């Protein structure tokens, strides 16, 4: 038996930590520890039972610099992000304003805009595979109506990335629309009334009032869209497997290939570290740059 009893502040500390523990354990176990372990793996060579792994310093990073496929997929990812992010955000905003107004069958329109988001990416890719398939695909059947010949959409390195971008915009815009719609509905209606009394045009009202007030949503959507442009690769498994000749390969899919097709865990870790650093960099940049123009209420 101890004679000393726990003091109240200590107990409160313990209580607080206990409350934090479940989330903290999950976060450390599934986020922080793997990230640190990845960093560690990237400094070692890939081991086999015959040749155990050993410390190689930055050799994996040097190999990365010399890997033409790495630079190609990085470039692809850049174009993929540039192609998907601005368009899907603009489209989302447009759709949100459209379905926020009074129009017949509003619920139906909202739902149909949102439907692509609900579908799993693999299902979407399987659908679009048949849109893009030469001759029997929907796209070719439509262009045939205008007398155009069949085009090998996914088999041509010049069109394959455009095809993926179009599909991703279709998939994502509805998701972002929901955020804009929620934000639009929380805007006080007095603002619009006041603007109307002042004789502001609709475009002026949008540009000077609505859009700035939507800035927090835009930031949120922008961060999400950027992350998604690096995170979404499910469709590659179905549509192109990164081909032809890596023309549609993205960084995360390349990591998958290196890890599970080449079994080069060390190099896959190195690529993952680069991906993590890139995403962290983007997040910091976005929060710092955009924060200045964001009006939190």
């Amino acid at each position, binding site marked *: 038996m101890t004679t000393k009893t726990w003091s109240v502040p200590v107990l409160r500390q313990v209580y607080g930590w206990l409350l934090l523990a479940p989330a903290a354990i999950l976060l450390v176990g599934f986020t922080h520890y793997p990230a640190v372990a990845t960093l560690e793996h990237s400094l070692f060579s890939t081991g086999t039972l015959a040749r155990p792994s050993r410390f190689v310093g930055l050799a994996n990073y040097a190999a990365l610099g010399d890997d033409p496929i790495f630079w190609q997929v990085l470039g692809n990812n850049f174009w993929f992000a540039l192609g998907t992010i601005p368009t899907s955000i603009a489209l989302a905003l447009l759709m949100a304003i459209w379905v926020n107004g009074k129009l017949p069958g509003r619920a139906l329109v909202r739902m149909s805009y949102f439907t692509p988001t609900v579908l799993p990416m693999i299902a979407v890719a399987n659908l679009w595979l048949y849109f893009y398939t030469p001759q029997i695909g929907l796209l070719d059947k439509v262009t045939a109506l205008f007398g155009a010949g069949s085009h090998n959409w996914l088999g041509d390195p010049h069109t394959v990335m455009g095809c993926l971008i179009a599909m991703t915009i279709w998939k994502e815009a509805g998701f972002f629309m929901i955020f804009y719609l929620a934000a639009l509905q929380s805007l006080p209606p007095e603002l619009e009334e006041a603007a109307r009394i002042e004789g502001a045009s609709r475009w002026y009202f949008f540009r000077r009032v609505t859009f700035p007030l939507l800035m927090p949503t835009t930031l949120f959507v922008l961060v999400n869209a950027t992350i998604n442009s690096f995170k979404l690769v499910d469709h590659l498994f179905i549509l192109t497997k990164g*081909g032809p000749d890596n023309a549609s390969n993205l960084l995360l899919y390349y990591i998958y290939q290196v890890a599970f097709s080449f079994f080069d865990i060390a190099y896959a870790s190195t690529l993952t570290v680069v991906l993590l650093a890139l995403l962290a960099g983007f997040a910091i940049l976005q929060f710092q740059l955009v924060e200045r123009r964001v009006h939190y209420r």
Partner: protein
Amino acid sequence: MKKLIGLLLLFAALLAGSFPAKAVELTFYYPIAVGGPLTKVVDNLVAGFVKEHPDVKINAVYAGNYDDARIKALAALRAGQPAQMSVLFSIDIYELLEQDAIVPFDDVATTPEDKAWLKSFYPALMANGTYKGKVYGIPFQRSTIVMYWNKDAFKEAGLDPESPPATWNEMAQAAARLVKKDASGNVSRWGVMVPSTGYAYWMFQAFARENGQDLMNREGNQTNFAHPDVVGALQYWVDLGKKFKVMPEGTVEWGTLRQNFTEGKTAIMWHTTGNLTAVKDTAKFPFGVAMLPASKQRGSPTGGGNWYLFKKSTPAERKAALEFIKWVTAPERTAEWSIATGYVGTRPDAYETPKLKEYVVGFPQAAVARDQLKFATAELSTFQTGRVRKALDDAIQAALTGGKSPADALKAAQQESERLLKPYR
């Protein structure tokens, strides 16, 4: 009566010392790469064996596709989970050797009868499982590439629907007549399609073999991508699109090719025998299956899964595992397996069994893959196999999409593979 035979067999086995007195428990992983309820077929095989060998317990673990199965089996071995044997991709052999995970069958199959068993399979199917003269892989679920042709389209084009093209020239000429254009000059039916996504290297092996070249050596540490005849093989593939205009330019998708064929959008396709049943079920026109056409010779790579024996096992377990693999690959079981799956019967005597004989009479297309085995070669498999394969895949796609000339693309792939394989010589 059955029980008595079982007991006798058991007794004989005990006498021969091939079974320990106490029960042995075996675990194996297996992949399924084609459609159909094959897990049931495997379960039935296992049940059949256990019935005859009551002192052996077998756990058959379905492990997804070939990649999944390899990952799971290796992960299980690393984690100390028991697995004494597995069906894995035939081309995983070098990866498994490098991981020091497998033992040669020669070490366990020591009796004259066992040695004869090792020699009872088609030699073409043994090529992927043999390393430095020792057998590491026993063929089980194996396939090859064949040519499917649309007999109606042949008739329409004024070609003999019963005689498929037998050489590259004949195929190019027949395909040119089979191309159909609509009023505005757009192609509504292509002459031939060879898929070039997913398994481009596999299809390309067929072209290379037909042009007289294998793409790698038996030790798996040297590739032959830049040989003039290999370049010539890729040139022909590219020419089908660019020069003869009988195939769409760019890459042809593996996954939708079967629909292209069954909807009549291409008159000829090259595809795996694994698609035979699906084509049979969906094609609304009579179709034929033939060996791939020849340039200098016929040729096709084999593909599919082999049995492997894992190193982490006791001698008693290895004996029992060998007993099981011998049992599963016996002629009768091989015949049943081939009929149930569409895979090639792995040994000549399986085709002598009444069951398979009868099946082939009713469905002669099933025998084409077997007849082609005479000309078949091992599937591309080397050390660092994933990377080497990707280098070749990229080269093929670069050439087909016009990014590089066949010679340049293959030279680059050869350089990459030289770099990768040097440490293994």
